[in-house]
């Protein structure tokens, strides 16, 4: 009975699937090294992201992770980034979508901007937010600009859209 051979193949595959599977990367508990907070010193010294002790890290450890982007999105409003940047469209602060990046668009640039702050109002968040959350914010901001993989980027959020197109 050939349908039996099919079913056994399916069974084997599915059993494998059940036991060998890794969920889409979703880090519930941050690695101890990522909990570090960059103190006020970050503002003066040219400390590199990653902290003095750890290796300088210039790539986002969460690059391409859908879950980190969604956490970053939550933190973006939790830490009141929306207060100045609205939902990315910009208000008091510059827009974060489709802009000329004043301080660069690389993850390390964004990381620096958040940790050290920038002139004209951007506060330094170093000393407050743990490193892993800064990287999540970086991932989210880059996802707003299509700089994260499309498959990890949500197409909309549950609030009023920060669209650039306007209705006449």
């Amino acid at each position, binding site marked *: 009975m050939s349908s039996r051979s099919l079913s056994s193949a399916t*069974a084997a595959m*599915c059993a494998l699937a*059940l036991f060998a599977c890794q969920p889409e990367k979703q880090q519930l508990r941050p690695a101890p090294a990522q909990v570090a907070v960059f103190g006020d010193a970050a503002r003066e010294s040219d400390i590199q992201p990653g902290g003095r002790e750890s290796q300088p890290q210039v790539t986002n450890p969460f690059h391409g992770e859908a879950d980190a982007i969604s956490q970053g999105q939550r933190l973006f409003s939790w830490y009141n980034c929306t207060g100045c940047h609205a939902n990315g469209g910009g208000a008091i602060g510059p827009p974060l979508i489709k802009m000329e990046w004043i301080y660069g668009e690389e993850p390390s640039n964004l990381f620096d901007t958040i940790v050290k702050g920038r002139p004209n109002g951007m506060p330094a968040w170093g000393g407050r937010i743990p490193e892993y959350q800064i990287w999540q914010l970086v991932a989210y901001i880059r996802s707003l600009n299509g700089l994260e993989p499309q498959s990890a980027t949500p197409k909309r959020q*549950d609030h009023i*859209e920060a669209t650039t197109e306007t209705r006449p």
Partner: protein
Amino acid sequence: MSVLTEWRAPAPEAAEEQNALYRAWADGRGIFSWFSVTTHQAIGKRYIVTAFVFLLLGGIEALLMRFQLARPDNTFLGPARYNQIFTMHGTTMMFLFAVPVMEGMGVYLVPLMLGTRNVAFPRLNAFGYWMYLAGGLLLYGAAFTGTMPSAGWFSYTPLSGPQYSAGKGVDVWAQMITFTEVSAMCVAVELIVTIFKLRAPGMTLNRIPMFCWSMLIQSFMVIFAMPAVMLASTVLLLNDRTIGTHFVNPAEGGDPLLYQHIFWFFGHPEVYIIFIPALGMVSAILEVHSRRGIFGYPAVVLSMVANGFIAFGLWVHHMFATGLPQIAEAYFTAASMMIGITSGVQIFCWIATLWTGRLRLTAAMYFIFGFIFIFVLGGMTGIMLASIPFDLQAHDTFFVVAHFHYVLIGGALFPLFGAFHHWFPKFTGRMINEKLGKATFWVLFVGFNLTFFPMHLLGLKGMTRRVYTYPAELGWGPANLLATIGAVTIAVGGILFIANVLRSLNAGARADSDPWEAGTLEWAADSPPERFNFAHLPVISNRYPLWAPREQQGIVVGMRNDRREVLVTSSMDAEPHHRLVLPRSSIWPFLTALGFAIGLVGSVFAFSWYFVSAALGMIGLIGWFWPHRPVEIRP
């Protein structure tokens, strides 16, 4: 009526004629022809076997959940994995097991019971199977590569929306629904047409076997309910996630409750889609093993039809806790309780059948008795849940988990197991071991009640659903442990059943065509049936043709045997109308399904893949409908 038959000795069956029939219905050998099979027995068997594989997977997931919940504050799975597992369990059982297995039973049995040779659209049938398989492989293939949905089998927005369910898990879930629903719709269309147009001459509406009635009603429900879930999953959910529509985004005029309405407009009938075929099986098995026709045939049929209608009017009872206007709530309470009337009529008619029958206590009958016990108990809790004040306490607790496992396992799985024991000789040509079958029943029955009965109490004691753990102080530990022990018992029952099937396949006693001395036409075909089912199509003049005296039985002559011919009869009185030439086996249904599947899997990532899907599907359909030599008009 015009089905006047004359007495005559059948022409001595020319061996050549017989061989022509075999040749016309042969499928060929080899892997290529394996993908192009279109006979209903093969497709039906594939549905059933595949669905069983998914039952095993869903069962393993259930066991994992039960292990996690066996004691308080357990860390066996953890929240992320537990949520994935319970989502996969519900999804697998509802979409990949329960509906497809019923479709499979229908595809296999309905043409046999109607006395015809295949379903009306054999290639659509094959296409439906491949779509179903593709959907199942999509879900488990994604799981294999690390993407699992974890928003529940219902995927309520906004939890399942773009903001709160990152990753592709929910998208895969939503598109898996599309596959399985397309498959269910294919089966529904072909079964409705088969039942209306391909019945044996003389099989008027009131002679249709009970199981065919149930499949007919189920198929109509599929046609009206399944579009709702496809809209819910692909338009409301998937489009919101992948192209940014705003159906469920309240900030832009959408509404998260809209998704619930559309989902349950499908979701409630879905339950009846699963369990109405089971009612048909119960009736069919009861008739045979009580050795009498079902008591109150019209009442049972009408109450099934009524079930089908009412099922569309009570979706809101899944949403009582959302706080709807009181007048609407009263209406939905009344509608929900009305199901009690129609189900009551069926139960009473079955009991009447039992009372006046001459019972043969086979394993199949054991399962029917078990069904009545469990299903009636589940029905009672169902009536309680229809009452809004009580529902507000019990909703989303383990009481509801207990209730729907009572009605779904009791209402569908027990009849299904009964059906396997009953029709096993027909499927395989061998008898299934009765002793082992009865042992299976007892283990399953005890295990089932051990697992799910304590859940009623857990729910009343405040244990909510879908929690991955619970604190010890609440005192839910002992009942949960009991439920876990019951779950293991059920697993033992499952192993017993598989062992029995494997053993009986190889060593069971050979079955003749009618080992139970049954009355309906599937027992007139060989066990297992030839690909063409009947060398001569039967003519009937009785609801139970095989129980009728010989002078009331007849056969059709004058069909051509060198091609796949079936007889089309009128939809009401089943008077012969014309002959229909069914297509031979074809690889195109498989290729078309493959084309659609590639595009639909892509659409999980980008909307534009729908167009790829349409283009590939179109290529498949061109091959499918490519005109071969014109059909000969020669009669």
